[in-house]
């Protein structure tokens, strides 16, 4: 447990929160939009497992613009 207490949470937490917001925005968009390049279930997994990179990949390549 002391390992966990040594982590400077007040510095790390904002990143986690920001990444969480980005992930939620991406997920909301996938579920509402549902028109993706490739199956949208796949994109949900990419966003959930890929963290920051997954969300960026979804917005750039996964989202169909038309």
């Amino acid at each position, binding site marked *: 447990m002391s390992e966990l207490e040594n982590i400077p949470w007040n510095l*790390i937490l904002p990143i986690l929160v920001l990444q969480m*917001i*980005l992930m939620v925005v*991406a997920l909301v968009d996938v579920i509402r939009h549902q028109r993706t390049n490739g199956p949208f279930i796949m994109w949900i997994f990419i966003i959930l497992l890929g963290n920051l990179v997954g969300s960026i990949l979804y917005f750039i390549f996964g989202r169909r613009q038309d």
Partner: protein
Amino acid sequence: MSSFNVLLKKEWRENLRTYKLYWIPLVFIIFGVIEPLTNYYLPEIMKSIGNLPEGAEFTWPQFQGEDIFVSLMGQYQMIGILIVILAFMGTISGERKNGTATLLYVRPMSFSHYFLSKWIVINTIVLGSVWLGFFASWYYIRILYNSVAAGEVFAFLGTYSLWLVFAVTVILAFSAWISTGGTAGISILLLLVFQIIDGLIGTYWTVSPWKLSAYAPSAFTGSVDQSDYWLSVGLTVALIILLVLFGIRMSKQNAAKTLV
């Protein structure tokens, strides 16, 4: 001017609905926060996951707050510019393909309003995102390193912003001229590859838009020839104006290519 306001609103709403207004600032802020943190904790990160041999000793460079700003700019120069290119490459060419343009071009609207409304909204998004990223980074730099003088930071950001406006103008002008794929290719060539070429053999000339990112850190050190700096700024502004005029002309000329 009312048609211009309508077009501005249309652009803003489009970027809101395609979520670009949310995710681009978020990504830049996340990069801005990660950069000072990873640099600060680099020795510890390497100790726990770096797979160093037993007893290996390294002297890590002592970073100053100013160095973190510069290394974050390096990050934005590669990943940031790539994200901006990929996000906005279809701004005009995509509209011609997906039918939005058909709805627009049948109305009496001036193409300079059309192009400039896009130019203003996209520049607002890109500059806003980068500035927010640097401000987030600034906050962390204050905590982890030393406080950097505000005047220097704003001089640095100002120079870098001019380069960003240039980058956005290049993307938009080519988007007005050729297809989305071609825009991506040429923008990557002009904005990323040229930047590397300029870094490699750029000692032979001192005035170019690509030099702006090299001159920006001089706001912290003050070691650059002032005339070279201002000539580069002037050249970049001139190129931006030329590219805007070119983009307006091309969006008018290519209006016939719209798919109905």
